[in-house]
């Protein structure tokens, strides 16, 4: 896993890109805990979100869960291939399983999120 990833306590990850955008997905732990995924609803491009706001929903055979924005900003890109290939979230959660790209209002917000070791400790607790 790339060291530059940051994690929200709600299990979304975020990766700062050289372009200034923030790529967002959900952690391998969260995907495994949800079990078999059956449906995903993504946000529209252009939507402005605040950190902690819902940006979509994902349904597994057991549960519907909200996906939360780990940082505030504007959604500028959505992985439209994902709802038709939900298995990608399990096979490549930190790569092809990305969900949205956000243009952050304040890039320093990412530093407030958990680093890899802190997130690992959270999911083991």
């Amino acid at each position, binding site marked *: 896993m790339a060291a530059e990833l940051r994690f929200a306590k*709600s299990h979304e990850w975020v990766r700062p890109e050289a372009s200034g955008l923030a790529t967002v997905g959900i952690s391998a732990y969260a995907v495994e*805990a*949800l*079990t*078999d995924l*059956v*449906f995903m*609803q993504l946000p529209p491009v252009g939507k402005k979100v605040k950190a*902690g706001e819902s940006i979509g*929903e994902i*349904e*597994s*055979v*057991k*549960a*519907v*869960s*909200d996906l*939360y924005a780990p940082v505030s900003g504007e959604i500028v890109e959505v992985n439209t291939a994902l709802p038709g290939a939900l298995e990608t979230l399990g096979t490549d959660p930190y790569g092809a399983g990305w969900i949205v790209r956000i243009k952050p209002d304040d890039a320093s917000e990412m530093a407030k999120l958990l680093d890899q070791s802190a997130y690992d400790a959270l999911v083991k607790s």
Partner: protein
Amino acid sequence: MTSVLPVWWDGPADGPTNMAADELLADEALRRCSPVVRVYGWTEPTVSLGAFQPLADAMGCEAIAGLPLVRRPSGGGAILHGTDLTYAVAVPKAHPWGQTPQVLYDAMHETMAATLRDLGIAARLHAPSGDDPPATVFLCFRRRSPGDLVAAMPGRPPQADDPKVMGSAQRRLGSAVVQHGSLLLGPNTAVGPEARDGGLAAVDSAGRRWASGELASSWLERVAARLGARLAPQGHPVGEPPLGGLAERSRHFASAAWTGRR
């Protein structure tokens, strides 16, 4: 250790009111920092759709034509309420039962299986098999997922196609989890025969007429015991003071925008 398990024995209500009350239950779980349970009925036979089931699938099902319909915030398949024991349990995500979906699912289903076995029903948790119907099947009781409650038919050893008698589904909110569930007591004659399942009546060699009250009490005593708690019946329906907010939330679940979201 949780010292009490608060339980609301709510009477019958319409679909939007029941969904709103279940959502309020999450607030109550967070306020108390503990699991809370609600057992309730329906004023008339009602279809509840899973959060993302296409409304067109319900419109195309002739067996349920004309019945009131409400969309749940939780996932899963359509349930035909009216001859079932319906419950909701809400748990803070920080609680051991709230951390992953399967834990809460199993806690509620294992305790019900034990309760039913004491009553002579050969109930068990479903183990997945390659022959399970797909998760897109319209009716909840025609689906199978790991941990669903199934029961062997009278006079027959357990088999892979034993009928499902109980299913549950969750809505995982920011800080809490709400799980809805339904134990089918007997066939629902308000729906056409092609959508009718037998429930407990079909797997009971004694041919008993099942009612929810005493069965729910026995079950929830087991749930409470598993938590190391005692049952604490609440003296007012969910949504009445001190909780409040029921009417406003009900309007959301009654809206065409919510029902037709997919």
